[in-house]
């Protein structure tokens, strides 16, 4: 439970009055652009950042307390593992840091290696592993003590699509076990695929928090999105988009419509403006659309 959390670094307000709570077994996504304050929030929950105001409790214990630390698993954005140790040695080291010994430690290490699909590379030095394998080991090290709550701070940064899918499968396996997860990302697809609820974070604030469907409905009701690519002078295209209340995103004009019948009027106006239609599609708005709608900026900005 996070209550009215504030954290400043000099003049910069990294976290600005954030409150949230999680149910057991829930996966909460923190979705926002780089610099939105997601990592600071995660680090505060992990007890590594002292808030200027507010309160954080982990299963009833204050963040940073021994009980909270034992209940928490933290997967930092950086590859926080020992490069000169093997995968198994890394896991054994972190296991010992959490007080695991003997048979319990061995079982935990074996479980982590299996979960991260690193059993056949257990003896390899970490620095010799591929980027995706290092990421998986980085995640496994955060789960070595079987925490009740896992904080995952952008675990797929710099990972190729194939390895990303493997990581998604790992996280889905954790969800199936009923583990509570807080997952930060600036990739909309990850939040949509993995999270029960999504908090949209911008400039240190949670500007929306709900399920994906509820967020979309709240922003767009039953309206759909029309994506149109047209050919014509840029000034004419911009004037047409502005007149019809749309936005240009990556060279594509985006509009929201209540009924498909509105599309015909849209195309007529394009023709009237001297623009030639190249491509047209209709879709349900997504989280990217919600973020754009709420902030006026793209998620990746």
């Amino acid at each position: 439970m996070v209550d009215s959390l504030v954290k400043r670094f000099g003049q910069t307000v990294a976290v600005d009055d954030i409150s949230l709570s999680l149910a057991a077994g829930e996966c909460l996504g923190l979705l926002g652009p780089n610099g939105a304050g997601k990592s600071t929030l995660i680090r505060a929950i992990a007890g590594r950042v002292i808030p200027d105001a507010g309160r954080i409790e982990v299963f009833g214990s204050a963040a940073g307390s021994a009980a909270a630390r034992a209940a928490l698993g933290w997967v930092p954005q950086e590859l926080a593992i020992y490069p000169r140790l093997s995968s198994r040695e890394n896991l054994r080291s972190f296991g010992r840091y959490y007080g695991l010994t003997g048979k319990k430690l061995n079982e935990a290490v074996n479980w982590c290696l299996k979960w991260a699909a690193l059993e056949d590379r257990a003896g390899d030095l970490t620095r010799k592993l591929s980027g995706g394998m290092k990421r998986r080991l980085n995640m496994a090290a955060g789960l070595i003590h079987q925490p009740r709550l896992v904080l995952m701070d952008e675990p797929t940064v710099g990972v190729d699509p194939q390895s990303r899918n493997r990581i998604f499968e790992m996280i889905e396996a954790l969800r199936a076990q009923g583990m509570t997860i807080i997952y930060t990302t600036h990739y909309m697809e990850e939040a949509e695929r993995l999270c029960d609820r999504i908090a949209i974070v911008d400039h240190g604030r949670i500007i929306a928090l709900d399920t994906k469907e509820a967020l979309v409905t709240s922003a767009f009701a039953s309206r759909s999105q029309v994506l149109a690519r047209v050919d014509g002078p840029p000034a004419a295209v911009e004037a047409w988009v502005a007149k019809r209340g749309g936005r240009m995103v990556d060279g594509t004009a985006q509009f929201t419509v209540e009924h498909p019948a509105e599309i015909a009027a849209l195309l007529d106006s394009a023709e009237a403006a001297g623009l030639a239609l190249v491509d047209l599609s209709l879709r349900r708005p997504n989280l990217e659309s919600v973020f754009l709608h709420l902030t006026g900026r793209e998620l990746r900005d």
Partner: protein
Amino acid sequence: MILPIVRTAIVALRRDRVSLVLSFFVPIAFFSIFAIIFGGQHNTVPRVKVIVVDEDRSRVSQQLVKGLESDGSMIVFTVPAPTKKQPAPQDYTAATAEAAVKAGDVSVALIVPRGFGDHPISFGPDSDSAKAGPTIELLNDASDSIAPQMVAGLLQKAAMTAMPEAMAEQGMKYTAESIGGFTPDQRKMIDGYLAQLRQLESTRAAGGDSAAHNGLAGGGFISVHARSVVGENKNNPMVSFYAAAIGVMFLLFTASGSAGALLDEAESGTLDRVLSSRIDMTGLLAGKLVFNILLAFTQLTVMFLWAWAVFKLDFFSHIPGFVIMGLSTAFAVAAFGMLLASLCRTRAQLGALSTLFILIMSAIGGSMFPRFLMPAAMQKAGLWTINAWAIDGFTKVFWRDLPVTALWPQVCVLLVIGIVLFAIARKIAQRWEYA
């Protein structure tokens, strides 16, 4: 194509200002220290500490002692410094003077024996007979080969300047000239004396005299017998000194390099992750400290074993002293490394800062140049370094063969240094604890 590379390197160097400053400061500081040590700027030749025991108490011997005391190249002690236990100590005796040389309090002791005043000169009709006068004994520490030679020379000088009546004996020659010559018997006798002197000098030149072996003045106006009371049975006098001196210097480099792992872990985020587990900062630093102590101790052990195997250092009969001094030194250097690492922000800063501190400490502390050859002020400054205390301790063990109980000053100082440095490192490491 070269210019862009140079420009990038310059910009990168300018970003790390601490490294930039140190890269200029280190060589200047180091040069200045060596200039001071070798007297280039201050021209302060180290004064030799000498104990003089006057067993004769004759007018001649007292004149000689006075002559020695008035020489600016020596600091002459005839009485130990007063202590709380002994506010009015007795004069040194031959035994206490020898003990003082063995303990390293002074490099040389001169024992002026009874009867010296009756036969102060080393040549003459009785020089080879049983009636020859007693010889001054020069007790020295073989690790310092310069001090005894210097003292022996100064002794002859003092004899020349402080014992004019003895030298007047030689004036007979001039007397003979002034009175018109000696009788043939008188001439024969004097020629005999001169022949003896010439023979003595030629023997010294050929290196056949036992005293000349030591490079000491056995054939001067005053007869001196030199005896090493420390290290006379050692196979290789300076090996134990350099094993400690070089060992400590590289221990410091190893410790600071190893402690630098903290910076790597802080940069990679591993430190944060470890601190989010059960381990707190004190535990983390203590763990690193223990590792660095073990690393340093192992390094020292390997070094001394090498000295034993290759240079015949008598290692195995000094195990208790070695372990005590080794662990104390390892603790101090490990804490020093932790402090440096906690002070720095980057590996480059640590490299520059450790080079600066370690080279300065090694130069002043005697790792590169024996402290007893340095000016007095530098010798005192050396007491602020880990090197000096560690080298002194190892010297006590391997050179002076002192019991482990004699190591308490060095052990106490090294432990205090270690505790204080670690406490400061812990305080500074707070910056890694929380944001």
